[in-house]
C-alpha cells in the first residue's frame, strides 16, 4: 500500500487534513477518490444536513462513501464551473482511548488565490466520529451542516473566543 495512504491516517489531524485536501482541485482535475475512500471505515457514512438534491427539502441525508463520490464527488471533479479548495478554520477535539469526535469548521474557496486571500465561498461545520483500530484512524461518520444567513457560525467555532 502506498505510503501516503498510511501517513494520512496516522493521526486525528492527518486524517482530517487529508479529507479537506483530497476534495481540493482545479476545474476538471481528477481527485484521488481511492485515497478518500481509504479514510473511511467500510461501514462509514457521510450525513449531509442540507437541502435534498431531489426535492429541495432540508433534512439529514445518509450516504455511503461511494454514494458521495458518485454524486457530489463527480460534480466537484467534472461538473463544477470553478476550482474548489477547502481548509479548516478551527477544530475542537475530544478523544478517549480509541475513539474521538471532532467539531471541525470548514471553509471553501473557488480558487487557490482566493484561499490565499481568505476570500471564502462557503463555510460550515463537520462533525466527525473517529476510531483508532488496526493501527490507524478511520472516519466512522461525517455529519455536516452549511452556514446560511439565518445560521451564522458562532465565533467560538471560528477560534475567535
Amino acid at each position: 500500500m502506498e505510503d501516503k495512504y498510511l501517513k494520512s491516517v496516522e493521526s486525528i489531524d492527518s486524517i482530517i487534513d487529508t479529507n479537506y485536501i483530497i476534495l481540493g482541485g482545479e476545474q476538471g482535475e481528477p481527485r484521488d477518490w481511492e485515497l478518500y475512500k481509504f479514510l473511511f471505515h467500510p461501514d462509514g457514512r457521510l450525513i449531509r444536513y442540507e437541502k435534498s438534491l431531489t426535492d429541495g427539502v432540508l433534512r439529514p441525508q445518509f450516504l455511503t462513501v461511494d454514494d458521495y463520490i458518485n454524486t457530489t464527488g463527480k460534480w466537484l471533479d467534472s461538473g463544477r464551473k470553478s476550482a474548489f479548495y477547502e481548509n479548516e478554520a478551527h477544530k475542537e477535539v475530544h478523544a478517549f482511548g480509541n475513539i474521538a469526535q471532532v467539531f471541525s469548521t470548514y471553509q471553501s474557496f473557488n480558487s487557490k488565490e482566493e484561499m490565499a486571500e481568505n476570500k471564502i465561498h462557503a463555510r460550515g461545520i463537520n462533525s466527525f466520529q473517529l476510531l483508532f483500530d488496526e493501527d490507524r484512524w478511520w472516519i466512522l461518520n461525517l455529519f455536516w451542516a452549511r452556514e446560511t444567513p439565518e445560521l451564522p457560525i458562532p465565533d467560538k467555532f471560528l477560534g475567535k473566543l
Partner: protein
Amino acid sequence: MKREYLEKVKTIDGTIDTLYECLAGESGEPRNWELYRFLYHPNSKMIRYEEDFTDGEFRPQYMSPYDFTSSIGKYMEKIKKTGFYEREIHKIKKVFGPIAHVWSTCESFGSKEDMENDNPYVRNVHSIQMAYYQDRWWIINLFWYRETEEFPIPNEFLGLD
C-alpha cells in the same frame, strides 16, 4: 403516547436523559423499547467498539437500534441476573443550529443501592451525533467505548478539571 414521547426529544438534554432512563430497571423488569427506538433516526446506527460476540476480537460493530434492543436490550431485560442503572457523570455539547454532537460520560450500576452508594461496575464514553429535524431532536449515531485499565477516563471528561 406519541405526544408524551415528543416531550422527551424537545431538547438535547431531554433526549440523552431518556436514553439512559430507558435502559434502567431491575432484573426481569420490562423496558420501554418503543420509546428507546423513538429517540433514533430511522437510518441511525449504534456502534460499539468492544469485543465481538462471535470471536472476542475488538472491532467496531454496527447495529441498528432494533438490533440493539432485540439483542443487548433483551439480555438486560430478561437474562441479566442483576438490575441495570446508568447515570451521566459529565457531558460536553457542541451545537451548530440543527446539528450537534455530544460527548457523554456515564457510569453503570448493578442495582439502585449501588447507584446510591456510588459503586459503579463500569464506565463508558458515548459520542452521539444528533440532528434537529421536524421539530424534534434525533440521534443520528451513537458510538461508545468502555473504560479500561489501559485507558482510564481523563478527569476533564469526569467534570473534575
